[in-house]
C-alpha cells in the first residue's frame, strides 16, 4: 500500500514537471518554413507578423532581432547579441497568454533589418553578401527573440532563426535545414582585437558602413524559417532537448500509472484468491 502511494506521488510529480516543460513560450507565427519577406528595391524589409504564446496574461512582450548566437553560449547577453533598437512597442499578452505583433500595426509591427543593426552592434547579412566595412561581427543566421525583457535574459525567451537571401536564389530545403538549430549552428565572428585596433578612422568606417547598408538590401528577401528556438520550440518539435525531456518524463509518468494499475490489479487478484 505504501509502495502504491509512493508510485502515485511520483507519477503526479513527474506529470507536473513534464507539463511545465511543455508549456514553455513558443513562437507560433511565422509557422511554416520558409516564410519569405520581400524587400523593396530601396528600403528595409517589409514588416513581419510574429505571434508567440506561453506568456502570462497581461504581460508586456517584446520582439527584437539578434545575431543568431545561441543563448547557451558563454557570455551571451541580449544586450550584446541582440539589438533592442530593432524592437517595436511591447504587446500586452491576451487572456490566453498570446502576444501578437501584427505587421499591419504601426506600433507593434516587427521590421527585420538587413545590414548594420540600428545601434551598430552587429550585421545581419544574406549569404554571399560582403560585410560592411564597419568592424562589426557579421552573421548570415540571425534570429528573432521574443521575451518579456529586452535588457536581460529571461526564462520565457523564445527564438526563431532568420536567414536572408537574395531574390534570385530561391530558398532551398537545405537552407531551412541548416538553420533548424540556427541558434547553436551560428558562428560568432567578432573581429579580433588587432583588427579592431587597426580599423580605419571612425568617420571613414561609418561612411563605408552607411554605403554598404544602403546598397546591401537592394534585391534581397528575408526568409524566416520554421519555428525553432534555442530554448523554446513548437509543441511537437522533438529536436529540442528540453521539450523532448518533458515528453520523456510525461511518458515515464504514464508508464508508472500503468504499472501502478497493474500492481493494484495483481494485489486485488491475490486478495480474491485468498
Amino acid at each position: 500500500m505504501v509502495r502504491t502511494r509512493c508510485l502515485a506521488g511520483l507519477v503526479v510529480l513527474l506529470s507536473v514537471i513534464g507539463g511545465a516543460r511543455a508549456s514553455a513560450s513558443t513562437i507560433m507565427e511565422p509557422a511554416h518554413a520558409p516564410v519569405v519577406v520581400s524587400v523593396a528595391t530601396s528600403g528595409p524589409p517589409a514588416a513581419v507578423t510574429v505571434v508567440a504564446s506561453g506568456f502570462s496574461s497581461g504581460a508586456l512582450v517584446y520582439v527584437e532581432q539578434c545575431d543568431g548566437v545561441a543563448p547557451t553560449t558563454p557570455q551571451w547577453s541580449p544586450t550584446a547579441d541582440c539589438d533592442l533598437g530593432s524592437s517595436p512597442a511591447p504587446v500586452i499578452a491576451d487572456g490566453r497568454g498570446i502576444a501578437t505583433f501584427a505587421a499591419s500595426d504601426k506600433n507593434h509591427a516587427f521590421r527585420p533589418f538587413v545590414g548594420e543593426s540600428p545601434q551598430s552592434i552587429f550585421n545581419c547579412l544574406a549569404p554571399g553578401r560582403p560585410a560592411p566595412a564597419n568592424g562589426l561581427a557579421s552573421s548570415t543566421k540571425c534570429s528573432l527573440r521574443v521575451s518579456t525583457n529586452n535588457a536581460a535574459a529571461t526564462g520565457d525567451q523564445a527564438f526563431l532563426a532568420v536567414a536572408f537571401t537574395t531574390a534570385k536564389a530561391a530558398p532551398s530545403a537545405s537552407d531551412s535545414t541548416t538553420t533548424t538549430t540556427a541558434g547553436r549552428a551560428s558562428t560568432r565572428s567578432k573581429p579580433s582585437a588587432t583588427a579592431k585596433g587597426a580599423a580605419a578612422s571612425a568617420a571613414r568606417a561609418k561612411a563605408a558602413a552607411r554605403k554598404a547598408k544602403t546598397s546591401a538590401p537592394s534585391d534581397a528577401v528575408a526568409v524566416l524559417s520554421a519555428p525553432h528556438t534555442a530554448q523554446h520550440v513548437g509543441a511537437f518539435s522533438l529536436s529540442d532537448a528540453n521539450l523532448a525531456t518533458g515528453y520523456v518524463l510525461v511518458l515515464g509518468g504514464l508508464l508508472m500509472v500503468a504499472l501502478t494499475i497493474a500492481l493494484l490489479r495483481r494485489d486485488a487478484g491475490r486478495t480474491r484468491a485468498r
Partner: protein
Amino acid sequence: MRKLWKLAAVTGVAVAFGTMTSIGSAFATPPAGYGFDNTSHVIVGGGSDTTYRAQIGLSDLWAESGLSGCPHVTANGTSTNACAANVNPETSNQGNYQGDTIAQANPVGSSTGIGSLNGSSGAASTYQGTVNPVPAGTCVTATPGVANVDFARSSRAPKTSGGKAPCGNELTADTFWGYAQDGVEVNVFTAARGAQVQGAPSPALTPDDLFHIWNCSGGTGTGGRVRWSDVVPSISPGSATDADIVPWQMNTGSGTFGTFQTYIQTNATGVPSGWSPNAQSCDRALASGQPPLENDIKPLVNDPAALATGTSADNPGNWIWWGSFGVFSAFPYTSNYTRSGTPTQAVAAPVNGILPSTSRIIANTYPIGRTLYNVTRKFDADCAKTAGACDFPGNPGPTVGATTDLNVTGGTSGTSGAVREYTRWLCRVSTAQHGLDPFTGTSFFSEITTAINNAGFTVVPSALRSSGSRCQVLS
C-alpha cells in the same frame, strides 16, 4: 679569467638597466594631451534618478579600464596607488590611465544635480555623499570647504534661462554630453486599462488631452476633470470602467518631470506660463503631501490605506502617470508590482497615436523622446571648437595608432582632469579610439553600448550626434 668576464658582463647590464630606470623615473610624464597627472583622484557624479543605473554600469567599466593603465606604486607609503616610474613618453591606455576612483551619489533629480555642480544654491550648499568643493568659474559659485558633485547626471536638456546655474544659462556654465536616448512614457496602471487606451484611435492621447488631464479641466468629470470616456471612445460614459482620471504628481527636481512639463508647455494649446503638472487640485501627491520620485510605481501603489475598485480614486485602474520607458522596460520590478494580491503594471498609453518603443527612440520618432546627459563644468570638460561651435573633426585630439583621439578640452590635472577623461571615454566614436576591457577582451566602445542597453536605453540617434563623437554635445 672566464668568471671575471661574466662578472663584468653582468655588472655592465645591471648598470645600464639602472641608468635607464633612473632616467625613466626622472623624466616620466603623463600621456600628453590628456587630463592625467599620474595620481589617483576621486570624482563623484550625482543628480538624475533615471540615469543612475546606466551611469553605475558605465562607472564600473571606467574603473575596470584602470587595470590596463599605468603601473602603480603598490607599497604602503605617501604615494600608494600613484603611477609608478614608467616608460617615457607614457602612452594612454584610452581609459582610466591613472586609476581614478569614480562613484555615483544617490539620486536626487537632474536639476538638483546640475545645481550642485554649479553651486547654484550658494557657497554653503552641499550634496551629501560627495567629496570635492565647487571651484570658482564662469557662471559657477565656488563652495570652498563644502562638497558637491564633480559631474551631473541629467535626463533633461539644458536650460538656457532659469536654469540651475547662477547666471541662469546652464550652457554658460556647463557642457551637456548626451550619451544615451530614452522616451518618457505616459502610463496607466493595469493591463486592462492599457488595452483600452492603446486601442483608442489615433491621435490619442494628444498633448491637449494630457494637458487637460493634469490641468483637471476640459472634461466631463467632477469639476471639469477628464474621464476615461472623454479620451477613449470605446468606453461608454458612466459604464463600469468609466471614472474620473487620477493624475499623479512627480518630484520636480527630476529631468523626467522637466521633460514632460516642457512637452506639455510646448505642444498643448492654452497652457499658462509656468504651468506645472503638480499644481492643480486633482493632481495627486503621496499621503505625506510629497510628490513621488520618478520611475518606480511601488510608492504609489503602497500609498493608499487600501487599494479599491470601481470609480474610486484608490483604484489603480483609474490612475495615470509618466516615467522612463527605458527604466520601466528594463527593470520590471519598478513597473510591475502586486500589493495584497492586486497586480498593478505600468502600461504605456499612446501619445499622438504612437507608443514608445526602442525602435522609435533610436529613430527619434517617438513624440517625447529625450537624450540623457553627462554634464560637466566647461572648465573641466568641453568640446574642441571652431568659431564657437563644437568641431571634433576639425580639431583632432592626440594620435592613437593610425587615427586620432576625440579632442575634449579642459582640466589638465586633479579632479578636473579626471572628469575630462571620463567624459572623453564616454564619447569616443569608435573601437579604434578605445582600449579593451582587461576582463573580457571586448572593446570598451561595445561595452559602453551594452551598459546603456542594460539600463533600457539606446545609444544616441545618429542624427543627433555631434560629428566625430558618439555623443550629442551641447556647449
